């Protein structure tokens, strides 16, 4: 279908037009939904038939196709209240997912004229709120038809996730921006009028007067030296494609509300995902950097990665009742590198405790010395050589053959995934692990250690999830302490077992 008229000639097929009703005479035949070519000179568009949109609930829940000459008209998204330090990173993330970032304001409200025009009707813009509160984030499209309280819009999927609950808002077009790289409609979100309930291949479908449930989120920032926390409340949509990213942005944005520009920050955060019918899932993270952008993007990424395990798990989608995050914020840079590891004797006896001394080089200043004790279990064979690994959890995980990652990979159900998520620790912890060469197997989300060879053989087969991973080492003992900033690096030293060794330290042992 070719669009004609001065507007069409000026802006062509603009992102945000999706869903615009197409009439043949007085009869509604469909919605504008497809653009042709990458940078078309002619305003030629494809149309999704209205019959298909009316039957949208029965169509596939799949994302829009991302290749080919004919592609869905892209959906503009815009944010208000998102700090500039995060905008560019957020833009990259979203545009790689097929959205068009616009810098128009999204918040509700406007002139009286705008409010008066703030109703949904065929051809009017429609807004989908994705984050509300301290900052807001929304997507816009166009209404195709409203039939019996059922709002048909877009003519193509938004995220394509099927049954959804997104707040449905009125919207006002502020400006139709002509752009050779892709014209787009700049819109402002109005009032909430219902809920988007279906997000499918041929349309998004809303219901007037229905209330969408969002995930309540609280971020409490505890700046160093302040007795009370600064609390930020938000609401985030619950959808696998976006929630982890939006929660991450929300945490970082809340932190930015409480720091000045261009200073060093150290962040340690602990959070909890409250689930219906399942135990809460704790998570933690740490980041530090000289400046704001890098550490806060690290925070966003870490949250996104952690929550992604839950939202992208292959078993079930639990109902998320809330997300709470507590952030300890220091406007100084605390970051450490594991420099040396000593232990207090040449050989150890089974049952003895090894005193481990660790030298940590901070970002600036004097070397920090920490020590802790690791007990060698009874029963370790005389003459055996053990290994002592010291470092943050990510390094320890690698030294042991990535058992947590492999447990997650082989977990057979959602409770298994949640249990493993709860064991993930951030790199502000300094961990010492005593391990030795004894085979272990990860299967069905469980680590089985110190196995005889035939048990390794059997455990490597007949798995429910089809995968088993083997490592040549098993953990014997571990201990840990917390630092006030993230740690990098790690060292592994050898520890000799000798039943005749003196019980007291005789000299330091260099790695």
């Amino acid at each position, binding site marked *: 279908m070719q669009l004609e008229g001065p507007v069409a000639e000026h802006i062509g097929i603009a992102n945000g037009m999706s869903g615009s009703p197409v009439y043949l005479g007085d009869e509604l035949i469909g919605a504008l939904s497809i653009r042709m070519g990458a940078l078309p000179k002619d305003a030629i568009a494809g149309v999704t038939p209205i019959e298909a949109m009316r039957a949208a609930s029965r169509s596939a829940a799949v994302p829009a196709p991302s290749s080919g000459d004919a592609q869905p008209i892209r959906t503009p998204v815009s944010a208000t209240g998102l700090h500039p330090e995060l905008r560019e990173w957020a833009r990259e993330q979203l545009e790689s997912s097929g959205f068009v970032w616009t810098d128009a304001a999204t918040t509700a409200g406007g002139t009286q004229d705008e409010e008066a025009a703030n109703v949904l009707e065929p051809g009017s813009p429609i807004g989908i709120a994705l984050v509300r509160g301290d900052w807001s984030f929304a997507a816009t499209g166009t209404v195709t038809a409203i039939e019996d309280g059922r709002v048909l819009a877009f003519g193509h999927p938004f995220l394509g996730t099927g049954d959804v609950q997104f707040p449905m808002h009125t919207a006002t077009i502020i400006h139709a921006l002509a752009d050779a790289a892709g014209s787009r409609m700049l819109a402002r979100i109005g009032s909430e009028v219902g809920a988007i309930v279906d997000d499918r291949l041929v349309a998004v479908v809303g219901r007037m007067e229905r209330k969408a449930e969002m995930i309540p989120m609280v971020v409490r920032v505890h700046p160093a030296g302040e007795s009370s926390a600064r609390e930020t409340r938000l609401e985030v949509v619950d959808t696998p494609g976006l929630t982890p990213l939006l929660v991450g942005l929300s945490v970082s944005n809340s932190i930015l509300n409480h720091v000045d520009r261009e200073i060093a920050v150290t962040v340690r955060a602990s959070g909890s995902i409250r689930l219906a019918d399942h135990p809460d899932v704790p998570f933690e993270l740490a980041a530090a950097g000289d400046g704001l952008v890098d550490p806060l993007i690290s925070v966003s990424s870490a949250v996104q990665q952690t929550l992604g395990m839950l939202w992208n798990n292959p078993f079930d989608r639990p109902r998320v009742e809330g997300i709470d995050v507590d952030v300890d914020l220091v406007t100084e840079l605390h970051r450490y590198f594991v420099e040396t590891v000593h232990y207090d004797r040449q050989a150890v006896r*089974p049952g003895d405790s090894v005193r481990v001394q660790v030298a940590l080089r901070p970002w600036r200043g004097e070397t920090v010395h920490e020590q802790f004790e690791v007990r060698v279990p009874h*029963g*370790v064979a005389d003459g055996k050589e053990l290994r002592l690994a010291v470092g943050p959890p990510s390094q320890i995980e690698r030294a042991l053959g990535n058992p947590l990652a492999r447990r997650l990979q082989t977990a057979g159900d959602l409770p298994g995934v949640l249990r493993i998520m709860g064991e993930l620790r951030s790199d502000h912890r300094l961990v010492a692990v005593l391990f030795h060469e004894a085979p272990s197997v990860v299967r*069905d989300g*469980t680590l089985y250690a110190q196995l*005889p060879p*035939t*048990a390794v*053989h059997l455990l490597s087969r007949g798995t429910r999830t089809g995968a088993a991973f083997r490592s*040549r080492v098993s953990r014997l003992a571990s201990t840990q302490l917390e630092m006030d900033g993230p740690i990098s690096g790690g060292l592994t030293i050898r520890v000799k077992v000798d039943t005749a060794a003196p019980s007291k330290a005789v000299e330091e042992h260099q790695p």
Partner: protein
Amino acid sequence: MRSVSRCVTLGMFSLTLAVGVDAASIDRWSASTEREFLLGTFEGTAIDRDGRIELAPQTTHLWGPESGIVWDIVPGRKGSVFVALSGPGQVLFIDADGAATAWYQADDESLITALAPDGKGGVYAGISPQGRILHLRAPGETTVVAETGTTFVWALKTGPGGTLWAGTGVPGQIQRYRKDGGPETLFETGDDPVRSLVVGTDGVVIAGTGGRGRVIRLERGSPFVLFDASEAEIVALAREADGTVWALAAGGVKQPSSRPPATQGPVTRVRVTAEAPPRNGNSDNDSEGDKKPESERPAASFRASGGGALYRISRTAIDTVWTTSDAIPFDMTLDGDGTILIATGDKGQVWRVDPSGKAARMIPIASNQASAITSNAAGQIFVAGTSDARVERFERDRRQHGRYLSLPIEAGTQARWGRVSWDADVPEGSSISAAVRVGNTTEPDETWSAWVDLADDGQIDSSALPASRLIQVRLKLADGESAGPRVSSLQVSYEPRNRAPEIESLTVEPPGVVIVPVPAQSTARLGPLVADDPVTRSATSGAPRGRARSPVRRGWEAGARTFSWAADDPDDDRLTYRLDIRAEGDLYWFPLAAGLTGTYYSWDARSTPDGKYRVRLTASDQTDNPSGDALTRAEISPLFVVDNSRPALTEWSVERSGAGREVAFTAVDPGGSVAAVEVAMDAGDWLPLFPEDGVADSDVERYRLILPTEGQSELPASMRVRITDAAGNLGGALKQVDAD
């Protein structure tokens, strides 16, 4: 009992034999050893202790297949069994009819790693990695006997007075739970898990460890290492009434230990079984990249890659009764007749080993891993499999029928299938019959022919077998009145269809080149060590014959033309050659030489008219093939020239040129081309002369030279001219050059 040697002859091939096929062209496939038989498929058949195919014991499928690992199986009452299944953990009670009831089901990824009957119809179960021992009296009626304080409960046994013994790891411990007392840890093996236990009525406990492969006797609380195996793991133990201990060990590299074993008896090797061929591939699930941390790099110590042994430990000696290099031993049980049944992976094989060390492979179960085996007081044998999990009961009786399928036999090319024969003991009333099918894919599939039964007289309709390069033989064994048949060898003979020789090159050597054989060395003059008859040719048929070369020497001879070639035969047939020649433009080839066996031919071409020719080389494999089957391949040479005419000098002229002379002449070679001209003045040396056009390459070349007088005392009186043509023919003249 009859001992028969049977053969079945396929009709088409017997006809060929009747007309006198050269025996050297017949190939044979045969299988007569356990290793060779194991390449085939056993369906209701097995291999006996002497490596023969026999009818397998009757088996009854009781339960499965399900996903999961069966760690242990113990007998229950009335032909029932308890099965320790993991993934998720369950203790199943399976009655004699195969009906399964879950007596216990874990709600997590616990493993049920050991079972022991309580003697009252219930069972003890070891739960890992919690290290917990449960007592299951009935479905859902579960009590916790002990928290062992360890991770795995690898072995459970009940002893006199209802005492329960547990082998754990890690830490490795031998624990005792008496009805009237609390738990006791009687011995610790540290990080060496106690993998197996046996408890005698005399209260002696024998334990096997799972890291250092030790067999430890615990008597009145005192430990003593009976045996320190070369394998890493003692997976199962058994003890006879006279105190003899059987220890089944599985391979792997032992855990290091700085201390020597407490004692070790003399080890004698009684018998080593034949090794099965190496397996293809590895079913490991490791995802090992190039840059893995140390923890993930391949380590032999935790790869149960196959191998193990059965040891007999008596008061006086330790004997290695049976070994395997490819199977992975998991479990064993003593049969009532004094034999030991061993369950192994990765092919689900069950072995029957008698005390002398003779081992028979019983029918394999359908699971890859025969991971547990037990027997009950009635002598019934139960075998459990893993991935897929299942339970089979081995009966005392033989099957009534069974089949053995050979591997697909590859002829290498389309073949005429000949004889199917076997050697067997066929007791009264038993029988063996054969069938074949053929195809052209490596693995039999729906494109193969249907099975064709071979008639009693061995004749079948030849049209029933399409042209093919692979054949599979199926033997059907039927039980007799008192015993079943046993096949000790199976053979198939066939004649691969002949393939044509291949000529790789045909070279026309430069004119005059001859190739002559070098006289044989003195050792070769002794003659062949074997006679050149069909029998010995067949025996040496593996030796490459087509490429046999005699040493030669290259020389030069006027008028000679030589052709040399390289040819081969894909069937290694001996080749003979024929050469024909044709003048360019002629229609007919004229024979030049025939019956050649070498790969060159030198020919005196001086009697042949000058001209351009080609030769045609024809290679034939008729020496090793019947006349109707012999094939030939021909190759035509590039054009070459026969030039026997001498070149000549014409148009000689001498003219005064200042104080000197200008000499001019023409060299001609009608049959070929002038290759070189040399001149010599008076008695001087020959000097090359170049034609006016610079290159001597045509049949007429014009030459011109100035004989200067300046600096010379006098002009030469004569000049000799020598002309050589491309064929090496010489011509020339002697001329006066000082005359005006």
